[in-house]
């Protein structure tokens, strides 16, 4: 960890609403905290809770999930599935001793660039308040020999063990 600690946030954004909104924030030149790293998924329904655990295990201090507003899902109900898993995941995190506030689910539509800005800033602030996530750092994973080589180990066992 560097001397000047900065929150690391992984953001999973659905391509139809929140990712597009983040693009809009960019087009509109809305500056916000640089701590968020956006990973694009097709739908917030693709959000495997393991992605969140993996990110936290690999050094993220917070995770943000962005999906379409209820009723707006491009795939009808993926965001509801995400909400379902998110609610459960928060309980699991609490059990693990991780502050559930480190993970946040937000509905941001494609036209809400300003909301991306607001949420990213809020999230950075929130994590700054909580401080770094004190987990044992996992060993750097060896990269595969070929693209079809090693299948990474199941995640839950990696960072959270011990």
């Amino acid at each position, binding site marked *: 960890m560097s001397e000047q600690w900065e929150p*690391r946030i*992984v953001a999973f954004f659905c*391509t*139809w*609403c929140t990712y*597009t909104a*983040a*693009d809009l*924030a*960019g*087009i509109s*030149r*809305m*500056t*916000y905290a*640089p701590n968020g*790293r*956006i*990973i*694009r*998924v*097709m*739908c917030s*329904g*693709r*959000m*495997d*809770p*393991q*992605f969140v655990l*993996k*990110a936290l295990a*690999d*050094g*993220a201090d917070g995770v943000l999930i962005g999906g379409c507003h209820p*009723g*707006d899902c*491009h*795939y*009808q*109900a*993926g965001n509801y*599935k995400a909400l379902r*898993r998110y609610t459960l995941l928060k309980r699991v995190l609490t059990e693990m001793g991780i502050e559930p506030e480190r993970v946040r689910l937000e509905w941001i*539509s*494609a*036209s809400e660039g300003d909301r991306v*800005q607001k949420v990213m800033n809020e999230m950075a602030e929130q994590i700054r308040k909580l401080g770094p996530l004190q987990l044992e750092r996992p060993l*750097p*994973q060896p*990269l*595969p*020999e*070929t*693209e*079809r080589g090693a*299948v*990474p180990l*199941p*995640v839950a066992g990696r960072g959270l063990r011990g």
Partner: protein
Amino acid sequence: MPEPTTNGAPKIGVYVCHCGVNIAAKVNVSEVVEFAKTLPFVTVAREYKFMCSDPGQELIQQDLREGKINRVVVASCSPLMHEATFRRATAEGGQNPFFFHMANIREHVSWVTADGHKATEKAKALIAAAVRRVAFHEPLEKKRVPVHPHVLIVGGGIAGIEAALKIADAGKKVYLVEREPTIGGHMAQFDKCFPTLDCAACILTPKMTQVRSHPNIELLTYSEVESVEPYDLRNFKVRIRRKACYVNEDTCTGCGLCAEVCPVSVPSEFDEGLAMRKAIYRPFPQAVPNVFTISRRGTPPCQAACSIHQNAQGYITLIAHGKFKEALDVILRDNPLPSICGRICTHPCTVNCTRGTVDDPLNIPGLKRFVTDLFPDYKLPQPKVNRSEKIAIVGSGPAGLMCAYELRQRGYWPVIYEAQPVPGGMLSVGIPAFRLPRDVISKEINRLKEIGIEIKTNTPVGKAVTLEELRKQYAAVFIGIGAHVERRLNVPGEDLPNVWGGIEFLRKVNLEGPFKLGERVLVIGGGNSAVDAARTALRCGAKEVTIVYRRTRAEMPADPKEIEAAEEEGIKMLFLAAPKTILGNKDTGVTALECLKMKLGAPDASGRPAPEPIPGSEFVLSCDAIIATIGQVPDLKSLGDKLGLETTKWGTFKVDEVTLETNIPGVFAGGDCVTGPDVVVNAMYAGKKAAISIDRYINKLDMRAGREREGPYRTEYAIDTSGVAMQKQIPMPAIALERRRTFDEVHTGYTQEQAIAEAKRCLDCAICCDCRLCSTVCEAKAINYEMKDHIQEIVVGSIILATGFKPFDARRIPRYGYGKYPNVYTALEIERMTNSAGPTGGEIRLRDGRKPKAVGIIHCVGSRDRNYNSYCSRVCCLYSLKLAHLIKERTGAEVYNFYIDMRVPGKAYEEFYDRMLEEGIHFIRGRVAEVTDHAMTPDEEGKLVIRAEDTLIGVIRRIPVDMVVLAVGLEPQADADEVRRKFYISCGTGGFFLERHPKLAPVQTFADGIFIAGACQGPKDIQDTVAQAGAAAAEVLSLIDRGFVELEPNTAFIREELCSGCKTCIPLCPFSAISFNSDKGIAVINEALCKGCGTCVAACPSGAAQQHLFTDEQIYQEIEGVLSYV
């Protein structure tokens, strides 16, 4: 293209784009490149000014061709922008295009990060993620899916019309759906178009007729899209609700005779409420299609509340128009005893009358009585069929009479057995003549006899004839013997002389005439019969009549109007008193009544507070006679039934609630002998219900099917009563109080003028009053009242939404006085006024008909205002100029424009503005503070004063004008949000539909195959709307001509060896793409149905379900990438 499997060990090229200065000004590109070189598998890392340019792409292709790399990462803008470009470059370099990944360092980094160092670090993280991810990419093939050549266009305004014609002219099939009865949209309402001032109708209507006659366009007006579902991977199955217009579109000739006779007028939507239209209407003469539509909301509250569903709104509307004969026909449609009901019905209709929420409900029975009084010799309709079966009916009360009538109308021959010497049951023996004259009853009964109903009086069933005989001789039997046996008080002295039962007393007076009871009469009870008995006792010569009731006035079950009438006649009321003992002896008869005071306790089973005696509170009332009227029960024993009819513990017949059939098949019962004492209309309802059952019984049909809507129910309509002027119910004339000692009818009925005035108070809740006059004049026989909404299902490959806008509601800004001052208008209202086919024939007039001498036009109403809409509505400046010109031209008035900025960009628009300046129109720069009628100088008297700051000279001005025009802005349609959800698209700021890209894809949306055109995308004028419609049409045509689309190969798949067959994924799929293969015991994904959301992948506990382009490994690598290196 080389074999994808021979791709070999990853050799990754990273290309970092400067995007001019867009990225390079913030991100230290060289540092990023140096960093990229350190990443595993990266063999080449380069930077270039514009990677998307041809030389930029060539860099990639060359490295690929030279074998330096076999996978590509481009760090530049958003993949939503250029992913396709670089995939193509990768493919042209000889690799599978999916050996590519993009890092978004412009939209997500350089444009949103203030600090250059942090931006550089963030860019590195994203590139590291992309590098790690792309190493796991696999070769994929894009799938081609055919595009269905049919097109759906939603909205028949100028945008929809234009797009439909363009596409249809190219030979493609178009469905044009419009929810109003005509196409044309807002443009059809306009008079002139800016800046050319050409006539809107002249340029629009030819296009409208072209749509109608075009062989490739199927026009579906008065229809709405119900749902849009995926038909396959790319095409849509659309369900369209064709709303019932009650006029056959194919046969209606548009002659308009129906509208001439229609009695219902409502404000015309097309004329912005400045003129009226009929309930059967065509919005305007050039409407396409040129057919009429009936506005029908369904059953009005009055009719729904009536047990026999008498169409009250129908006859009331006809009375209001002086069509009394027609009103009678409507009355007789549902009711064979209208002159009786018009007098004594307890009128549940008035209880639910919407007018009652404003001032008073209508006197609905009074109006019915007026019509029947006007035609004393009317006839009942003759049955249209005749059958052979005879039906026995026991009892000639309202239940029996109604049953007989309904059966006769169905062709049967009813025979009524009546024990009393006169027919009519309780109507004749229980209701006094001053409320219901005997000749009214006899006339009604004679009318029934005239249509073939036989009535045998003095023929008590059980004595003269037995029930068993009736059952054998007749096809069916209906028992409606009412409830005529008095309930007893159960107090000592009840059998003394001059103690009467209420019905016993009334029967005697009704059959034998009045007789002397005594000076002081006490009536015990609080129902209608008690009040009737009291008022009859008065007419029998009693000096003092007192009603003794154990609860209070509020709990009295009698009709409040009857109680009032009794009080007017001098009848006293004694509340909270119950009889304890009747005093007297056999010789003197009754001399007094000992009562007990009561108090009100907790509510009982009826919901009313139960009276509780106060011990020791006895008091004595002296009297000469007592009439105990505390209710009646049926006399079932009198029938001498040997059939074995089941009864209840309340001494009534046990019947099936739906069919009214007793336990003996073919024997039905209804009215008071089933329900206990109830009102006339409910007895008639029972008779009608039984008749329907008997008809089905005889025809061996299902007696229960489809009978949910029989009997009273509630309907409510949101009626805007805000503008309704208060006008109380017109009191029904009555004979003088001093004459109310005889059996003359108390109420004399409305005069013609009164009836019309009362009828005019009706609020037309259901709009169409169902009088059916229109069908009598329609020569084409096009009117079909039974028409129902139906669903049309179509399959299309492309959809254009052209649903337009709605004008800003000026009422939302109260300080401009719209709705308060009559001479404040919206622009659209003036638009209609200036139209020569409009409500004033093209004259611009104030509400009182005067020509305005000065007119103020207020710009930006609801636009450029943070309190309402912050956007500019774009068209208001120009249309204000147009209206200013038209107003000045037609009236010579001084016209003042109050503007914030004049926004007149566009071809020939500035010139138009110049011309208006030259025409002498005044322009005042400043937002208007308020419109007021408060005069401060004599000049301002009687004027509307517009107060505004003139910001050019820096003073507050007060401009007195006669007319104010509000240039209201454009808003999304009220249901825009609902519509965009239906079509899987998004709304942007302000609620307008969101385009895919504001500049480069203005008519595309994020949903493939769905396009937008016109004002639904944002405020725009006709010019731009037409241009956009053309663009949308071009998009659609290019899709259809290409014939297929390529789908992103991001579908889910199952790794069979990992699937445990747990079926978790199956119910999660919204597209039902997953099924279970029971042979293999694994889940199977139908790739043709999978849309690629990945929800199933996230849920798979074993990792068997995966998604191409978004496998678990790829996302894990991305996570590690963004976190591991920086």
